[in-house]
């Protein structure tokens, strides 16, 4: 297993990403107008205005309209509330997202039990419009509210032994009826390599469409890792642990041939049972081509330089 040292954070370029954000924000506020790629990314690249990858990230290969709030909150994979897409909205109504405590522990200088209000107070949220690509080959464009995980990690100060970040969801079958069946090995667990966790894109999401997260979207705190398949974006987080070894992750434990640890969006690596080359953007009729790293290659490809992505899927 290739263990990478966390990259020098000052080398991470944030500016092109902020440009991307501002354009997305403008599009979102301009009444969800579809962004037509009026100028093909290759033309922009040819004119040296920006790299082809940056242009693709900013404009997308095709339009990127926001997914309506109704769909974002009524079409969910959240097996803790049932395995149907409509189940979470139906059964998560009584879920208590407050009071909520997140235990942060493992190899760090400031472990502790943090109330969600503490986190929200210490790390102000901003709007981030991200694509979410499910492993099932459908996708959405979601305006999250949240704070970068890297800010939280900077505060808790991981030690040099922290190679990975492990996340755990609440385990409470009384509140989460789906947990009464052993569909997955509860509680849901996920993880990131420390450099993935420190990437500016990795978001601790606390809201959507400018409001608090609805229960079915993973209230009150969830991950949004837009360059990975959606199952990596763990919901209703109760524990964040800095660990030395690669953490076990729920879908990988369930079906290791189908769901890997990295789960980077990659049109060239098919799921054993379906192709990942195309996806259905909700609201569209024709499938669209899936982009490498879900169109975030500019921001994250460097994390995987030299890695065999067929092997480490």
């Amino acid at each position, binding site marked *: 297993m290739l263990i990478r040292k966390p990259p020098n954070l000052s080398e991470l370029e944030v500016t092109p990403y902020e440009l991307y954000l501002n354009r997305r924000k403008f599009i979102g506020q301009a009444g969800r107008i579809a962004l037509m790629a009026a100028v093909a990314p290759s033309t922009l690249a040819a004119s040296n205005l920006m790299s082809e990858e940056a242009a693709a990230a900013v404009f997308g290969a095709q339009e990127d309209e926001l997914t309506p709030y109704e769909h974002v909150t009524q079409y969910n994979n959240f097996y803790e509330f049932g395995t149907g897409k409509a189940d979470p909205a139906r059964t998560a109504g009584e879920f208590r997202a407050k009071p909520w405590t997140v235990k942060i522990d493992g190899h760090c200088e400031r472990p502790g039990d943090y109330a969600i209000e503490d986190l929200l107070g210490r790390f102000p949220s901003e709007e981030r419009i991200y694509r979410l690509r499910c492993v099932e080959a459908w996708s959405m464009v979601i305006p999250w509210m949240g704070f970068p995980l890297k800010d939280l990690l900077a505060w808790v100060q991981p030690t040099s032994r922290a190679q990975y970040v492990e996340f755990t969801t609440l385990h409470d079958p009384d509140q989460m009826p789906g947990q009464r069946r052993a569909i997955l090995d509860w509680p849901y667990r996920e993880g990131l390599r420390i450099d993935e966790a420190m990437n500016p894109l990795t978001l601790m999401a606390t809201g959507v469409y400018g409001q608090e997260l609805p229960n079915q979207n993973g209230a009150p705190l969830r991950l949004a890792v837009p360059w990975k398949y959606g199952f990596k974006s763990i919901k209703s987080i109760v524990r964040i642990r800095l660990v030395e070894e690669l953490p076990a992750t729920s879908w990988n434990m369930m079906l290791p041939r189908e769901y890997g640890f990295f789960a980077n969006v990659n049109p060239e690596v098919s799921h054993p049972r379906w192709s990942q080359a195309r996806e259905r953007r909700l609201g569209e*009729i024709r499938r669209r081509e899936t982009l490498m790293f879900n169109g975030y290659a500019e921001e994250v490809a460097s994390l995987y330089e030299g890695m065999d992505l067929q092997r480490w899927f």
Partner: protein
Amino acid sequence: MILKSAVWLLGLVPLFWTGFRFATVGLGANPIEAVLHWAGRWTLILLLAGLSITPLRRLTGWNQIIKVRRLVGLFAFFYASLHLSIYLGLDQGFAWSFIVEDVVERPFITVGAGAFLCLVPLALTSTRGWIRRLGKRWQRLHRLVYAAAAMGTLHFFWKVKADTFWPLVAASILAALLLVRVPWQRRRRAEK
């Protein structure tokens, strides 16, 4: 005939109900997936319903029911054709290279295609003309329905990610409908 009219109605209800929902509340965030799954569900339901007619007749002595078996079977084929068309047209957008790759490389699609192929000759030879023309061979040909139902159930089972509840229900019903025929097959063979 009241029974046939009832089956006609029941066979068309899912279609009208879904059409109604589509026109009013909509079919959710992913309507193409919704109708694809809906059509597949009804294909399997109707296949199993068709397979339950003969056992029902033998167990209850209700001979009239055999008259609607063909209609139920043809409805199953109708929903199977819908399911296939939605997959080819709406879901895959007639992208033939992707479709061929799916059929060849994804086992659950291979058996799905196989199930449909088994149903085609059954639909084509469902008429009285063909029953006459084929004679004894008709009965043998139409045993393909067992293969179709088995492959359809496997297709469903292999498609789901983790929640195997409904595929297992379908498999159990199919197993029961096949097992109940075993003693009758044995008796018929013994009589020959």
